[in-house]
């Protein structure tokens, strides 16, 4: 959920995008300065020692520098360019069986030691209210190590002018294609994270992420109608090379109805298509409600996976820690313990993976110093595991954490966050064009749209960007006013086929919200185009006033 930490920019209330505003603005030339690991280690040791001396049985220190650059455009104007930086130290301790956390932007030895002692004092106070002591799954110290997102082109070295011109070129193409209005943005992130703990780990990580979303709006003043189409590109754990479009990274959607992207993204081409699509949506046929076989592309399915598999298998939700905000989960421990809870059809295999190349969740180590790994959540349709941190592993009988700990800032306390959760490609050879041939009455959905799910993740409703009728094995006309409603378990059990690995791609988000006070996390979800039989489709057209 996107919440109060976002500003609705540009005054575009409908179909606008949300930008997190955090940190202080800095000059472009300061972006590439980096604090050496050799300077961070003594600072971390000061915190570890201060905490231990004050009585902590465990301590971890995160020294963070978070850099963001946002470029925001509207039609042919650059509305804003902002560089922000946030740096500081967060100290988490366990004392008398309870957590304590304190953070400071004062990165002097005294400032850091004071924060460590404060964290211990808070832990001692919290211990009086604690009913059960914190139990951390063991982690072997890894000594001094480093990990970096493997980027080819650092966004910090690409001139702002060049980036702004690319967005304006996309907006121009969208308007030439048929859009009345365009809005595009470029979010660029560099997180320099140093983690140290009393387990003997000193981990230096340099993480890069990038996202270039846009929104095309077509207006027909004569009818008073307007329609939008947003970007089909994905947020990625990559450098600026993602925006250097390459022909080999383009894929044709089934029936050639759209161009989709893998290792790089042609934003100008997609914007032109979006202008054309938005205009076509103004006169597209309104869907007849009823049961349809749905064929969902990865650009759409990532969000359904996120809401209906990612969130229900977060162990803190299952246990009730999120009951007052994000909710709980239908995927209760007894279902998992039974080893036969049929979450989905036999063909449904869903894995959690913090190592997937180019994904948003890919890191070397999580925010508890646990090495990234891959594990099954659903195997052959059966619920087999959850997402856990060090303090939760024992609850599900695991000897090690899954490495799902994340904090969105040095100033916030880490807790369980969703790793990349992805649908595995089908083993049998199958392309989207081949998949269409077997469908008698269906709808092909490309791109993500409106989304809503209940607090235990049973009942959901999803829209999309582009909808095409499938009739007797062929893709036909564009449809509009489509949304599908389903129950999570029924939906995944209706999965009839998944295309093979040639069609596997990721989507994702920068803005997954959870916790109170809320923290924002980043996550990717991969899938191949998949077919779901007999899903209830509603017509969303309404007349007002």
């Amino acid at each position: 959920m996107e919440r109060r930490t976002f500003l609705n920019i540009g005054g575009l209330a409908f179909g606008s995008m949300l930008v997190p505003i955090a940190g202080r603005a800095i000059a472009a030339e300061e972006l590439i300065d980096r604090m050496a690991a050799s300077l961070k280690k003594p600072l971390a040791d000061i915190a570890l020692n201060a905490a231990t001396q004050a009585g902590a049985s465990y301590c971890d220190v995160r020294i963070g520098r978070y850099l963001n650059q946002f470029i925001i455009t509207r039609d042919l104007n650059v509305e804003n360019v902002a560089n922000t930086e946030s740096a500081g130290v967060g100290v988490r301790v366990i004392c008398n069986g309870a957590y304590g956390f304190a953070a400071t932007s004062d990165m002097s030895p005294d400032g850091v030691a004071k924060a460590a002692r404060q964290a211990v004092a808070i832990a001692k106070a919290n211990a009086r209210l604690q009913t059960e002591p914190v139990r951390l799954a063991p982690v072997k110290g890894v000594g001094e190590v480093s990990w970096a997102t493997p980027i080819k082109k650092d966004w910090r070295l690409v001139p702002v002018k060049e980036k702004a011109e690319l967005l304006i070129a996309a907006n121009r193409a969208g308007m030439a294609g048929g859009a009345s209005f365009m809005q595009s943005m470029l979010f660029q992130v560099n997180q320099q994270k140093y983690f140290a703990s009393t387990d003997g780990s000193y981990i230096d990580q340099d993480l890069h992420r990038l996202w270039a979303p846009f929104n095309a709006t077509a207006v027909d003043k004569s009818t008073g109608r307007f329609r939008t189409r947003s970007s089909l590109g994905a947020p990625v754990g990559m450098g600026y090379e993602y925006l250097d479009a390459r022909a080999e990274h383009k894929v044709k959607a089934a029936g050639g109805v759209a161009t989709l992207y893998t290792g790089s993204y042609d934003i100008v081409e997609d914007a032109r298509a979006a202008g054309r699509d938005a205009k076509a949506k103004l006169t597209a046929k309104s869907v007849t409600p009823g049961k349809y076989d749905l064929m969902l592309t990865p650009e759409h399915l990532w969000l359904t996976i996120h809401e209906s598999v990612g969130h229900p298998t977060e162990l803190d939700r299952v246990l009730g820690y999120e009951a007052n905000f994000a909710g709980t989960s239908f995927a209760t421990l007894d279902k998992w313990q039974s080893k036969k809870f049929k979450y989905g059809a036999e063909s449904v295999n869903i894995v959690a993976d913090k190592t997937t190349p180019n994904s948003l969740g890919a890191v070397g180590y999580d925010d508890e110093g646990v090495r990234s790994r891959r594990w099954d959540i659903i195997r052959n349709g059966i619920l087999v595991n959850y997402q856990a941190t060090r303090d939760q592993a024992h609850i599900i009988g695991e000897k090690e954490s899954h490495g799902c700990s994340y904090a969105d800032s040095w100033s916030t306390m880490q807790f369980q966050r969703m790793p990349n959760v992805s649908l595995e490609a089908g083993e049998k050879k199958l392309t989207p064009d081949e998949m269409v041939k077997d469908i008698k009455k269906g709808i092909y959905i490309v791109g993500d749209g409106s989304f809503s799910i209940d607090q235990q993740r049973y009942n959901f409703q999803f829209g999309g960007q582009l909808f095409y009728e499938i009739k007797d094995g062929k893709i036909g006309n564009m449809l509009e006013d489509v949304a599908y409603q389903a129950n999570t378990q029924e939906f995944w059990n209706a999965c009839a086929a998944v295309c093979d690995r040639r069609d596997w791609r990721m989507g994702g988000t920068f803005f997954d919200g959870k916790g109170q006070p809320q923290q924002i996390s980043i996550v990717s979800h991969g899938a191949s185009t998949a077919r779901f039989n007999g899903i209830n489709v509603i017509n969303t057209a309404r007349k007002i006033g």
Partner: protein
Amino acid sequence: MSILTQEQTKRICDRVMAFSKADECRVTIKGSRNGNIRFARNTVSTAGLADDTQIEVQVAFGKKQGTATINEFDDKSLEKAVRRAEELARLAPENPEFMPAVAGRQFKASNTFAQRSADIDPEFRAQAAAYSIEACRKKNLVAAGFFNDSTSFETIANSNGVFGHQAETALDFTCTVRTEDGRGSGWVRRSARDAAKFDPREAADVAIEKALRSVEAKALEPGRYTVVMEPAATSDLLVYMLNGFDARSADEGRSFLSKKGGANRLGDKLFDEQVNIWSDPWDKDVPVLPWDGTMLPRERQALIKNGRVNALEYSLFWAKKKGVLPTASAGNIIMGGTDKSTAELIANTRKGILVTRTWYIRMVDPQSVLLTGLTRDGTFYIENGKIKHPIKNFRFNESPVTMLNNIDEIGKPVVIGGDESAYSMLIPSMKIRDFNFTSLSDAV
């Protein structure tokens, strides 16, 4: 450092203006102290206190603008921030829609500060959590909740002599109470500027009662029903709709307030005539700062009057283009009502559904403001003026425009914080005909 006085911030603003070599300079200083306590499974999970003070300097050379932010306030840091903003402004492309800083504006203070809230300490927060936890333990229920309080200030100034400074306090409490078997769930939210208006016992009792009453829920067929919506069930729906009151979007043809042929629907009667919605920075229950983000003074403004679209919001740029006066963005939403309690609305209902709260609301179609979402934490069947039994939750697909046309009866407005919006709101319970529930949810 976090809470500065008017004298201190005035001095900082003057220093910044003196450093600036740009054509114009705008300064915003914000400081806050946020305290919170979170609990779940009948125990405290986290508690924290965070201080933050930041200054934002925005300068312009002609139509080229740059912004820099810093959280240090010595002369050297202030000058650095000004130079960075100037450097970014020189590098920035010219923005044809740039609007110069406002001039000649003054602000009439609103009552946004309460000392009793500023005095909230860890003990107060612990007590707020403790009552819910202890009461739930005794009744074999499970409490999860969050109490958050803030003391803050905002100072604005620009090189045209505009200056404003005001302190604020606020608190927000939410609590979800569930039965141990997970078959019942109740919820409550209380928001206030003044801690004297917050009673954690009263709040917890509401959530506890709803949890106990909501077990043994029966399924009703989805369809159109008369509903009694508590304020938390409609507040976020209204926010989605009011976001469409931007004049530019309406004029450009991309809002539900756009008209066939190109005009907007200002003056049209789109809602039941009982509907009156306005904003007012000086409202005694939901006061907000008397300026908006562009340093325009907020005024009392009726957006919907007797069911008619009475005003749209004009930004500085759009107002200039259209030759009208600009309007400040609203900080609060107030919907007029009656003196009737929710219980009276229920008593006047022959057959209907009581909705405590709606959740995960998302726009399905901005053309009609069609929204989807779900009921949660206390949904009951009403028969012959009485709550008969709990019912399973529903998903709805409904437009607030349609909803505000189908009003039977309006209750007494109460203060309610938005689930996903930052507005202070004063919203009544409403009895509405033909509310469209499209499917059942098994969620409790």
